[in-house]
């Protein structure tokens, strides 16, 4: 692996190049990258889910959005076809998953924008807003689910 392309976080985690005074303190810390045993803090979880939801929206969301909007606008018949397709339980589950991805990405995104303009950047505030993002996203997804079924 090329060390130049590694992120500073990687280097810090590996205890590699940094000031000697820092190295003495940090090198005794456990380097603990077992994903099954790492306990991610809540803001980290929100950030991780932001990325997962973004990837999901890119891979599945955008093509389905275009296909759906295309069908909905083409003709009254294709509009009705789309209605029928969405009534399918599997389609409803996919839509619910995508709804969560969009809503979470939306809420977490607004949180990041607020952090950018230095709102709620203290640790308790950042933790609180992370919990709010998680709870509001799930609550709004439930509302969408109730509307779907």
């Amino acid at each position, binding site marked *: 692996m090329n060390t130049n392309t590694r992120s500073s976080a990687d280097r810090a985690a590996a205890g590699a190049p940094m000031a000697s005074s820092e190295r003495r303190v940090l090198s005794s810390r456990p380097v603990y990258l077992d994903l099954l045993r790492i306990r991610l803090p809540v803001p980290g979880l929100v950030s991780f889910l932001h990325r997962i939801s973004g*990837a999901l929206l890119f891979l599945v969301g955008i093509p389905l959005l*275009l296909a759906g909007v295309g069908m909905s606008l083409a003709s009254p018949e294709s509009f009705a076809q789309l209605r029928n397709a969405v009534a399918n339980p599997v389609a409803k589950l996919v839509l619910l998953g995508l709804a969560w991805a969009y809503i979470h990405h*939306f809420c977490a995104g607004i949180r990041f924008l607020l952090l950018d303009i230095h709102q709620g950047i203290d640790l308790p505030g950042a933790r609180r807003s992370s919990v709010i993002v998680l709870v509001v996203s799930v609550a709004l997804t439930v509302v969408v689910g109730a509307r779907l079924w």
Partner: protein
Amino acid sequence: MVTRREAVGAHYGLKDWLLQRLTAVLMTAYTLLLLGIVLWRGGIDYTLWRALFANGAFLLASFLFMVALLYHAWIGVRDIYMDYVKSVALRLALQSISVAVLIAYLGWTIQILWGAR
């Protein structure tokens, strides 16, 4: 300190970071607008849906939303590739495919939006 610049890197500038946020704000406004219309009308049927897209301002807003979405998606997937795909060759391949797909989506968007008029 950046010691080596990659052709498939972030170009170490502010432009993409800023555009990621500007496109996000634009998409937020459009999402709230559309949600507002749907809630205000108490649902959408075909006639209303067509009438909405026959409105030039809404059509352009929808087009702007899609352009913002596709550019926002590009910055996002590029960031993911830069974080996890360490091989420059593989990253170049993935980025090229993603750009091609996103530009194709833009063509599809134009077909849908202006084909419906």
